[in-house]
């Protein structure tokens, strides 16, 4: 919550600096005294965890770039030979980076679902949500470019499939889609030129993400945090200073998260990986099953569920663009699902739907489970994904009778008595 600054420079130097560049004042107001709702729970610690993961990925990435060679003939060996076997601790830094991508996406999905559940995208926080969607899209692009760099079979064929999505434009304007894909490739196929430019962009985008994260936090600090009750902060009795209350809470859960992260790095470093990526890229042989990384599987399932190329690509694009419209698709006046009995059930159904789509995306296209072709499950899942946002969200806002929301944050947290005491 933007409010009156309480910072008082204590030394002659900080007074001098404050009049010229009030950077200490800004840090103090944003991260020390910043009034934060007193009822934020565990799910609100993922913003801090995500910031940490961004730093981890940039630091390990810069180190890996010192040893990596972006050349189609040398890339695979520079990763699997040099970095993994020869560079001191190269294996560790690479496994931190590759598992870090999965942890980053795990944290961002929790962060997004938390925002959906507590209605954090609603007025006056629409811009925070939209900036968040842009960060998510940038993360997907960065992860895609990064996955190509080791130049394994999955790297190569993943790059081929994703860049070929643009060739669907051929069905609207003949030859334009092919021209765009060849422009993206810098050749007639994914090759050396493609690898070089993907490396360049993979290095660039994290810094773009950092910039948008700055805007995201800036936009957050105008209205302040939403909270599990989804009601506005009424006064100082509803808030706590960010430091030490939330710095300590964030640090505690960050420590738990890092233990979880380290368990994969040290004990199951290839858990999220695909064995085909330990084979060097071969443009003449496609692996029998092309599977993207787990965090892209739901979208892959949606793409595959449509038997027509152009429509499949359009559904994939729609599933992402839809996220930008959520603030206006939700017509309910109540933010938090705690007080929205219908929305709460549809939300959990949506979460289950995303898991189902992810499962379908990981199986072969003709797979059958319990007598049900997964292709049909993916179709139902895709329909629910889109209907959840475009039909159910607007409709439920009108149909649903929300429960009564509390009068203030302080009341359910501290009880009537002490809240009254603070007020008096």
């Amino acid at each position: 919550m933007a409010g009156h600054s309480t910072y008082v420079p204590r030394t002659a130097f900080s007074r001098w600096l404050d009049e010229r560049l009030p950077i200490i004042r800004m840090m103090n107001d944003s991260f020390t005294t910043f009034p934060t709702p007193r009822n934020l729970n565990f799910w609100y610690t993922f913003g801090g965890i995500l910031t940490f993961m961004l730093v981890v990925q940039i630091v390990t990435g810069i180190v890996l770039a010192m040893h990596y060679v972006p050349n189609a003939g040398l890339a695979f060996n520079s990763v699997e030979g040099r970095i993994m076997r020869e560079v001191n601790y190269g294996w560790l830094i690479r496994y931190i980076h590759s598992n870090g991508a999965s942890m980053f996406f795990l944290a961002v999905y929790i962060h997004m679902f938390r925002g959906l559940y507590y209605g954090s995208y609603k007025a006056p926080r629409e811009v925070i949500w939209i900036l968040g969607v842009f960060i998510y899209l940038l993360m997907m692009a960065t992860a895609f470019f990064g996955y190509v760099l080791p130049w394994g079979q999955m790297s190569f064929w993943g790059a081929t499939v994703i860049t070929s999505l643009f060739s669907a434009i051929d069905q609207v304007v003949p030859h334009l889609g092919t021209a765009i894909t060849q422009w993206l490739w810098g050749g007639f196929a994914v090759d050396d030129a493609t690898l070089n430019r993907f490396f360049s962009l993979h290095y660039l985008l994290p810094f773009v993400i950092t910039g948008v994260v700055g805007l995201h936090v800036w936009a957050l600090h105008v209205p302040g945090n939403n909270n599990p009750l989804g009601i506005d902060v009424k006064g100082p009795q509803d808030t706590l200073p960010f430091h030490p209350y939330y710095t300590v809470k964030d640090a505690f859960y960050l420590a738990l998260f890092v233990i979880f992260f380290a368990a994969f790095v040290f004990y199951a470093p290839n858990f999220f990986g695909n064995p085909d990526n330990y084979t060097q890229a071969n443009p003449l042989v496609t692996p029998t099953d092309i599977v993207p990384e787990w965090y892209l599987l739901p979208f892959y399932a949606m793409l595959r569920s449509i038997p027509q190329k152009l429509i499949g690509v359009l559904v994939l694009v729609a599933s992402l663009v839809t996220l930008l419209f959520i603030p206006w698709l939700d017509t309910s006046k109540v933010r938090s699902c705690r007080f929205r009995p219908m929305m709460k059930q549809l939300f959990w159904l949506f979460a289950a739907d995303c898991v189902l789509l992810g499962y379908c995306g990981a199986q072969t296209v003709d797979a059958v489970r319990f007598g049900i072709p997964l292709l049909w499950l993916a179709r139902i899942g895709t329909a629910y994904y889109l209907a959840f946002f475009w039909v159910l969200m607007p409709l439920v806002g009108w149909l649903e009778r929300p429960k009564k929301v509390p009068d203030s944050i302080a009341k359910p947290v501290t009880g009537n008595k002490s809240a009254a005491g603070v007020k008096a």
Partner: protein
Amino acid sequence: MATATQTTRRDFLYVATGAVGAVGVAFTAWPFIDQMNPTSAVLAMSSMEADIAAIQPGQQVVFKWRGHPLFVRRRTPKEIAEARAVPVSQLIDPLARNANLPDSAPATDANREIKPEWIIVVGVCTHLGCTPTVSTPQSPQGEYGGWLCHCHGSQYDVAGRVRKGPAPQNLAVPPYSFIGPTKIKVG
């Protein structure tokens, strides 16, 4: 004195300066866009010659052309007869997609090759670019005897024509010619 609603010489100069500036930005942007296109070295490598005499009927050999697999398959008389019997009206993509013929040529089997025995196509699935697997009597792939793409399940017949989605088009026939009885030049 000009009033606010009148167009003055100054307004003209503003618009003219802005327009020249925009054209300048566009001209400056073009090199940064065009540098992404295939380089002259990549374009220079775009044609290839191959001797296909050793390929037996029913067999396929894969060459590499422009970074892509190129399928050269010698068809058996039975396969040719099957492909010729399919009416164009049954096809998903009614166009030949043959770079040696006009764009509007129909996808009859005869329009898909130069010599009936030899079907030569780019081995890139027209859906999302995977390499389809060849179907042989010993190891059939799909229902049409041609190729099956494992990525998303598209199927092609022995003329390389798509018979089952999601691929929208027939496998592309590259520009090629016979420079000898069993020697081809592609590209």
